[in-house]
């Protein structure tokens, strides 16, 4: 049998070397390897071989078969273009219908994943909220001029004797005291990413938008910790070479308060046409005001904390360098827009 196999192999190889067309190769393939080809019938006869030699015979047949398969393939590639079967690999594929997640969802997923790695816990808080959580406990008593900045929507519903009027939450900061009350005692590491509402509409403002808010409270939390977290965020979200800086600002619910800038992605802080002075404004941050801690039932003598809250849309657009001329597009439903992301 061994001899028979070798002869058959050599015979096939000799024929393969001489062909000049694709059709001939196909005929050879059928003759030797087809369903009733010469090798196929040879394999059927392996049973006849004595048991001790059977394994070896099997190996030999397989080896011969593989050699022929390779020779066939190699010869196909050596045939001239004209002799080949025509196939056009430039034909476009047929794609499945594709769906799209909204820009805001993509941004939220990224931001959320990043802070989860630092042990921040994401939760959800009321979007329709009492004045108490939106302003009062954030050190903005009734009548305080700082409230003007928020352009708040009020709900036409009876005020609560303790919690005051019902508002659409104008910022994610209304979750701060809620989270302190939920956790009861520090550590607090909250990330709240939620809808916010403000009474404004133009090319760069929409009445509904998203913010993400970080809140960390523990013993010995410092400004350096806030800076460390912001730098971590900038490196991981915007890119390893990006840095942040703090500038003085004022919010009633943080003391001190900061405005946070990140180095421009184009010039990395040197200053260019795009950014003017090397820095782009990210948003607000600060050390939690002792009165806010106290309002949340946390002893400000024992604990300190930091918080930051920024716009999701703005931050994401800054990252990707997306130039969306009118933010209202994001909250429209034009397929030609939605399908771009």
């Amino acid at each position: 049998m061994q001899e028979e196999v070798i002869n058959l192999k050599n015979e096939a190889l000799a024929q393969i070397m001489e062909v000049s067309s694709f059709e001939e190769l196909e005929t050879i393939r059928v003759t030797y390897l087809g369903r009733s080809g010469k090798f196929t019938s040879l394999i059927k006869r392996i049973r006849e071989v004595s048991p001790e030699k059977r394994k070896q015979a099997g190996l030999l047949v397989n080896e011969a078969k593989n050699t022929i398969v390779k020779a066939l393939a190699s010869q196909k590639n050596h045939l001239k273009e004209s002799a080949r079967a025509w196939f056009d690999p430039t034909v476009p594929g047929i794609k499945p219908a594709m769906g799209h997640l909204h820009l805001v969802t993509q941004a939220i997923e990224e931001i959320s994943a990043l802070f989860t790695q630092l042990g921040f816990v994401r939760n959800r808080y009321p979007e329709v909220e009492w004045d108490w959580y939106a302003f009062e406990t954030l050190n903005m008593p009734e009548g305080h001029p700082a409230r003007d900045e928020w352009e708040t929507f009020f709900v036409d519903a009876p005020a609560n004797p303790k919690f005051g009027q019902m508002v659409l939450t104008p910022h994610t900061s209304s979750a701060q005291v809620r989270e302190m009350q939920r956790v009861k005692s520090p550590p607090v590491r909250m990330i709240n990413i939620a809808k916010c509402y403000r009474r404004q509409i133009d090319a760069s403002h929409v009445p509904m938008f998203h913010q993400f808010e970080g809140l960390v409270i523990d013993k010995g939390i410092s400004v350096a910790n806030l800076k460390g977290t912001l730098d971590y965020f900038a490196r991981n979200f915007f890119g390893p070479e990006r840095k942040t800086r703090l500038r003085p600002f004022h919010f009633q619910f943080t003391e001190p308060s900061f405005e946070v800038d990140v180095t421009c992605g184009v010039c990395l802080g040197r200053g260019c046409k795009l950014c003017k002075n090397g820095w782009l404004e990210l948003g607000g941050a600060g050390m939690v005001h002792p009165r806010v801690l106290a309002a949340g039932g946390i002893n400000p003598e024992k604990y300190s904390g930091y918080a930051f809250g920024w716009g999701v849309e703005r931050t994401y657009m800054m990252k990707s360098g997306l130039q969306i001329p009118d933010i209202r597009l994001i909250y429209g439903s034009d397929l030609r827009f939605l399908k771009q992301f």
Partner: protein
Amino acid sequence: MNITISDNWLRDYLKTKAASSKIADALSLSGPSVEKVTRLKDDSLYSIEVTTNRVDCMGVYGIAREASAALPAHTVKASLVPLKSKSRQTFAKTVRYLKAEVDTTLCPRFAAVLIKGVKMAASPEWMSQRLERVGVRSINNVVDISNYIMKELGQPVHTFDYDKILKGKMLLRPSRKGETITTLDEKKHTLPGGDIVIEDGKGRLIDLAGIMGGTLSAIDDKTKNVLLFVQTYNPLNIRRTAMSLAHRSEASDIFEKGTDPELISLAIRRGIDLFETLTGGKAEETILDIYPNPPGAKTIALDFDFISGFLGTVLPKHQIGKALTSLGFEAGWRGKSLSVKVPSWRLKDVQIKEDVIEEIARIWGYQRLPGIIMQGALTEPLVDSPFGFEAKVKNILKGYAGIEVYSLSLVAKHEAGQGALQLANPLGEDSSFLRTSLLPSLARAAGENAGVKEAFHLFEMANVYLPRKGDLPQEKMMLAGIFVNTGFRQAKGIIEALAEELNVTLGFIPEDSQYFQPSQRLLLKCSNKFLGQFGMLETGEIYYELDMALLKLGIQPRQYKKIPSHPAQIEDITLILPAKSRVGDVIFAIKSTSPLISEVVLGTIYNDAYTFRLNYQHPQKTLTDSETEKIRGTILKILKRDFGAIAK
């Protein structure tokens, strides 16, 4: 609030060699933020954002003080040139030229001085130019002086025509509801009550204090004697009046933030100087000053270790002291304790230890603080967090070619649903209610793409707001979607596939409802709870919605099922169903016939002929032809009896 400061004017009080760009940088990094520097031929204008707590920075002098502290931290020498006055007038509780009765809860400090023999004229060019550069129209020397002081010191100042204050008397009191006054801009206001007003000796209202003067006592071309008037008002009254009358002025914007009563002495002396120089007038020897309760000194004690712990780094003690004194604080160390006396112009703003640390750190330079991620224990993660599940559902729908939208939760009344919450101050009619269903929003979203001929599927995941009596609304997370140019079976298949992928057993129960075409709506049910609906809208699109919390509850853990050791017998059966048959019920009947039927799939429908593919599967063996034939026979018998179906 944004203010404009002229560089030339600033250098009256700021001694430095720093260029305007350097001043802008230093201020931005250590003080109020300079948003823009506009260069003129012989001057530069800073546009500066002053936060509500820093009313002391509303004028040139305050900015000079900040810059003199900020610049050294950025390696440029600078110092404040104190404002000096030539005025030697004295202050007294009573004066001969004016009898004033003042409610000091409304006006904690009331100062005025009579200036006689004023000659009305145009202002000198240097003054009108400075004013116009910072956006104030020059009117005449008297009006310009009051504006100049406000721009320079951040202290609003008013001037009366003295001879129009009848009987030389003033009564400063809260207004009564319904009183009227006409202000300098010729607007007549009906007062809500509790506004700060001044009436003269004949009971006429001559001033809407802190907002705008009245016409009755206004300066005019013939004015000879001017009452220069400098006050501190209760910020809450000012704010309430400005808001309720919707009448704001630069003065009210400043007063509502609470000005420093100590600043009044400087402002009135500065006024006297300017009046005597520019109008030829002569000030009386005594300034009326009703100031019964000057604020006491405030001292804040801090510990060195607290400062270091709060900042996360150790600053040299002498640098801490230096930063504070450069801003006008008095700072003294005793061992590790620091005692800080707050200057009058920062009393409202600097009240606690953290406020003092801010002053230290910003002048030291935030850029010099280290960045260190916090250590310590972590918070327990949420039990049953919804976010992973929500992301999963969105991703599944995306995989089925769904396109996600975010639509505004504020809708028009007719879209809002019964009892929906209404906004007290909406932006417009079409966004005045909080939605209780996503249907109208998605119908609108579909409508925005009316020209599209291809099939598409929009979906949204958002809260609806369901009102509750005496409480915040229930915020229910809903998944909703709309299929356009899509067949009923394709759309329904997506919901079925979603349920299958989540391993939720969904029941579909036909039930008609508003907005849907008759017989084309299904309630979605899972273990006896209704969690949503699906159906063909009257407008031709297909809409569905699901309660996300209930959907999540419906998830069954995946179980391992033994892989059958023998292949199933598969066969197609075509049935002719009578008109108005429900094929869902037919499939259910087939499945219920025998446990050996492992799968029934509806294939093609051709007129009234329905082809089903049946899998016969025994867990341990291959079924024989006679066994399957027996089952098939039973099926056909039941279908004929219950549905009138005939095998083809």
